[in-house]
């Protein structure tokens, strides 16, 4: 029966859809949307801008379903290899893995609707495939009719796709004509060949390249990128590309004069590099985290250059001083974010430099020694300050914080982790004056008592995230006060030994927006607390119950009410058995992460239940569990999304069982942790195959 909403024109539906998927959680919203009707599904198919593919066997089908993708995320797609690329780029879908065959019907039904939508969806970008622009040397690519989805792709995320070689990379990039951004980070074996492939595959529109932790990348590769992308390159991230040195950065700065964001964190670059970076007149964001050879001399170049600098990160640059940093910030009045954690020993005279920084929004000085004057100056000169990080700062006093609190009324996020001497008065001042406070981190602030929580509950209505890990002073009464913060979405109460069921109950009944709660080693928490959580916090997605040893199967049964639960950590819960695990597996259908290390009393029937019900599991930790050969094989072969498995010290499983289980999960596993003794016992065939498919192996 058609209702008003189903009969809306496609344009309006697509507009609704675009609002719907703007959230972080777009996968879930999109799924609900497309399940409404065929028409809705068509809208989803045509308008979906982002796709994150979890299983390689559906890649081809998915790509042909969503022809107007702007962003394709293959970072969690296991076993992606060069062959896969040529397969998905094949002119017509071969449906090699086909389990789904509704595609053709959908195509024919909505062909007209699609044409109608094409106009609204496709931008003014040139769609002439055969214009030959930039394709002189790539005859075979141009002659082939490429699948539709390649036309619109702007961003490719290929993180951790270790199986993808330079050939596949080049093909993939060459197919995506309008590609602007490519992310190939954390493929540790990526190097110059991959960089060259990116440059060769680049159709001329590439602006962003992210190559974090490409350990084999050298200056040669950087030079390739610099020469190949030249002026067009606006963002490059070379974080932890340890072999890149000054000379690479120099040619980069020479050739890519329009660079806006540059990340050279962790490189062994010296001041010479900063001299060349200083010549980048368009640079807005520079990250120099952990560059031990950068000194004040280099910062001086930075101070004299880069007129548009807005974000500067010099965290853990051990060789710079407050004066050097002061020189930079004194010359960059537009600076909005400054991260200088763990790099400065002292901040004497630093406050003078803060004078011009009236646009500063975020500052982090974790691990430094501060005086009250700095905080005062921050409050005085930086009225727009929204985020401040003061974790592990020495010399922080209540009075200083109070002054800061009274002048920085726009503060949204403050990190006071491990500031052991912070008292209630400082927190009260923060709560009273910073009414927009959303994120407050108070880990290991031992002097905090319920008074702080009282004032937080009274004043900070917009508090979203609160970290009270290891705060001895937090008790049930405090939690009751805190529960007035209705918007709380993330609450960390790890190691708060004084809290019990009562406190959790009050939080659970009042804060219904909670998405994440951490109860690590809260030994006072029992089954009743879980009952309250499962009835109150229906949106709970992440729950940590590790070492809450009093929790039993009854609590687990309560948890099974949480339909949104996706990450569950139940380490060391010796009182739960297969019954509890079965309940969770059956109830929490979208559970993706499960850590049950040291759950020694769960036996095979529990794992069978996991294998049967928890089809969405992606990460598992079965270390020190009693699991038999059959059960491990069942789990690893049945769970078709498993990508990360920690299988150390499996009591009851033999080598053969483990080999079989690994073999069964060849296609999907991306990361596995095994006992190091097995390194030489496992058959080389298994190890080689895993490696060839881009699986990372960790040995414990």
């Amino acid at each position, binding site marked *: 029966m058609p209702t008003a909403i189903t009969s809306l024109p496609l344009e309006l539906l697509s507009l609704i859809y675009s609002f719907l998927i703007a959230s972080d959680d777009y996968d879930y919203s999109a799924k609900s949307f497309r399940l409404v009707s065929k028409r809705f599904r068509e809208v989803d198919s045509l308008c979906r801008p982002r796709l994150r593919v979890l299983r390689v066997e559906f890649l081809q089908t998915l790509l042909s379903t969503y022809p107007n993708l702007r962003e394709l995320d293959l970072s969690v797609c296991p076993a992606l290899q060069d062959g896969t690329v040529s397969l998905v780029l094949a002119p017509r879908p071969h449906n090699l893995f086909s389990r789904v065959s509704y595609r053709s019907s959908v195509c024919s039904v909505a062909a007209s609707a699609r044409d109608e939508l094409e106009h609204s969806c496709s931008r003014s970008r040139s769609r002439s495939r055969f214009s030959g622009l930039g394709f002189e040397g790539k005859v075979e690519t141009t002659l082939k009719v490429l699948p539709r989805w390649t036309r619109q792709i702007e961003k490719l995320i290929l993180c951790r796709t270790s199986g993808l*070689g330079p050939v596949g990379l080049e093909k993939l990039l060459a197919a995506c004509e309008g590609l602007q951004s490519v992310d190939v980070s954390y493929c540790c*074996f990526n*190097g*110059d*060949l991959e960089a*060259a492939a990116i*440059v060769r595959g680049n159709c001329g529109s590439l602006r962003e390249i992210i190559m974090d932790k490409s*350990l*084999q990348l*050298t*200056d*040669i*590769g950087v*030079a*390739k990128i610099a*020469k*190949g992308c030249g002026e067009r390159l606006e963002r490059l991230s070379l974080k*932890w590309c*340890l*072999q890149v*040195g*000054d*000379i690479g950065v*120099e*040619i980069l700065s*020479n*050739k890519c004069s329009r660079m806006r964001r540059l990340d050279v964190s*962790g490189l*062994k670059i*010296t*001041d*010479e590099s900063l001299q060349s970076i200083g010549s980048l007149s368009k640079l807005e964001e520079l990250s120099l985290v*952990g560059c*031990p*050879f950068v*000194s*004040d*001399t280099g910062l*001086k170049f930075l101070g004299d250059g880069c007129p548009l600098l807005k974000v500067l990160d010099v965290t*853990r640059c*051990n*060789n710079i*001083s407050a*004066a*050097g940093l*002061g*020189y930079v910030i004194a010359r960059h009045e537009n600076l909005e974010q400054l991260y200088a954690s763990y790099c400065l020993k002292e901040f004497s*005279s630093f406050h*003078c430099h803060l004078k011009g920084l009236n646009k500063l929004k975020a500052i982090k000085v974790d691990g430094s020694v501060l005086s009250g004057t700095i905080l005062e100056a921050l409050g005085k000169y930086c009225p727009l300050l929204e985020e401040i990080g003061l974790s592990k700062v020495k010399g922080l006093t209540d009075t200083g914080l109070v002054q800061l609190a009274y002048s920085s009324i726009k503060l949204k996020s403050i990190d006071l982790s491990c500031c052991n001497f912070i008292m209630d008065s400082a927190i009260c001042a923060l709560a009273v004056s910073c009414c927009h406070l959303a994120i407050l981190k108070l880990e290991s602030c031992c002097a905090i008592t319920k008074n702080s929580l009282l004032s937080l509950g009274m004043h900070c209505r917009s508090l979203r995230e609160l970290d009270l890990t290891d705060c001895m002073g937090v008790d049930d009464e405090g939690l009751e006060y805190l529960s007035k913060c209705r918007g709380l979405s993330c609450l960390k109460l790890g190691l708060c030994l004084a809290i019990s069921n009562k406190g959790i109950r009050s939080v659970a009944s009042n804060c219904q927006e909670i998405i994440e709660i951490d109860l690590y080693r809260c030994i006072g928490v029992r089954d009743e607390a879980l009952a309250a959580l499962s009835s109150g916090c229906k949106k709970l997605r992440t729950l940590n119950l590790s070492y809450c040893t009093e929790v039993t199967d009854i609590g687990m049964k309560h948890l099974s009410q949480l339909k949104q639960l996706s990450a569950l950590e139940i380490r060391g819960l010796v009182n739960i058995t297969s019954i509890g695990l079965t309940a969770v597996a059956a109830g929490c259908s979208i559970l993706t992460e499960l850590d049950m290390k040291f759950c020694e009393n769960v036996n095979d029937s529990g794992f069978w239940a996991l294998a049967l019900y928890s089809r969405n599991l992606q990460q598992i930790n079965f270390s020190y569990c009693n699991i038999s050969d059959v059960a491990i094989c069942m789990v690893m072969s049945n769970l078709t999304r498993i990508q990360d498995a920690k299988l150390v010290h499996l009591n009851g499983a033999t080598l053969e069982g483990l080999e079989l289980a690994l073999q069964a999960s060849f296609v999907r596993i991306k990361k596995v942790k095994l006992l190091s003794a097995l390194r030489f016992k496992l058959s080389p065939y298994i190890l080689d195959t895993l490696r060839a498919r881009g699986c990372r192996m960790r040995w414990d």
Partner: protein
Amino acid sequence: MKDLKIDTEDNLHAEAWAKSTARNKLPKHVPPDHPSQYGNFSLPRNQQNWVDPSVPDHTLRPQEPYEGFNQPSENQSNHPHNPSSVQDIGLQMNDIIEINKILDWDPRTMLSNLSFLKQKIHQLQDLVDLIVGRRSPTMGRPDELVTQQQQLITADLTSIIVQLISTAGSLLPSVKNSLSAAGPSIPAEQLGQLGGVILNTSSSVNAAALPLSSDGGTKVIADQPNPVDPTSHLVIEHLDEHESKDEEDVEDGENLPPGSYEILQLEKEEILAPHTHFCTICGKGFKRDANLRMHMRGHGDEYKTPAALAKPHKDTGSEPVLIKRYSCPYVGCKRNKDHKKFQPLKTILCVKNHYKRTHCDKRYTCSRCNTKKFSVIADLKTHEKHCGKDKWLCSCGTTFSRKDKLFGHITLFQGHTPAIPLDEAKGQAGPSTQGETNEESHKLGNMNFGFASDGEVQDLMEDVKGMVDEPSGYYSPLTFDSSNFGGFNEFPRPSFDDPEGAFSFLIPGSCNYTRKSGGESTSTNNLS
């Protein structure tokens, strides 16, 4: 000061130094212990100027009695390493060379030369005068303020000395010339006097003055109560190094006026003879130095002394009669004395290498690549060291032995990119990284020295000073420096040699640089 004035041409230099420093009235205020200080602080500069810059100056510096001076010396001594300041010196040298070229060698030249120097010094003199005026009432009081002022003067003087050294360096040949003209018997006394003058007037410039008296001066200085041996050694080393640069293409910084030297032209056969030791008087070559020394006896009695016959102590006591320059026997060569723009060769070794390289067949072929040919064996050996390591390849097919050369090439040419060798298998960090990292660490060493030296950084320091409104902060140019950078000199010994280690310590979360603490400890050493 005036009573020390000596009329001889040679000592005009000395007088100039004496004058300039007398005007500064520095020696009066220098406490008796300070000469060694100055010696010390000028030491690292020389060292850094002329000795391999990668040598950390800590290792060679003698024990300093006054830490207060250690810092300025460190700071200032770094100065010449800034490329720009080196250029400055180069410029000044060129200026002086110009003057030398234009005017003939006579006392008036010298005077105009000195007045030129005076101008150079003038601004600094004003400053020193000012401080001297301010300081006089507090004389004799070992006040903290006095020390600070002295530090300031030291800093200023250091910059003067940079200029003076360069001047002295440029004047050197003429001094030699006149010295040698005076004959071998005179200088012992005269030089002693000269050295004495220099040392008495201003010990702070003895380092600068040393080049004037290359031989005798050292002796005299060695007798001084505050020996500054390291300095003199270094200066002399520098001279040696300069002379022994056997390349004819090393720029002739001298431009001797024609006629001021003797031109020798060895015959082709003599040049190609496998001799390595040559008589500085007649040019005859020998295979062994001992034979040469035997031969030298024939040139006069002075060569018969045990000292002269003993192992070479680099022409001690006696010296050539005239400055000798050499001409290439190949007619039409620019190095031939009949050429219009004749450029003489400095040493016999230069002649040999020049002749072989330019006018002989390239007989030695590299056994590895079989393409490169050389006529001088040393060149072949140098090449063989790097042969086959031309791993830096451009897309145009050109190979380079050094990465920076390749990068210079690709920066220059449109469309050229570095090529990746095909055999570079995926997933292995080739051995190439070794050399690279070494190169890197060398660079770091250089960086280190170029460090607080920047004139620009000093600007920065001044800025900082301006912001700290304390007198102590104002007077010491180093508050900025010593506290933060002191440890940096120890820094450039990175353990990056093995790439694996580098990886492991940069994995996020395990970033535990212990280097920082090392730097700290050294800085405290410097301070305490």
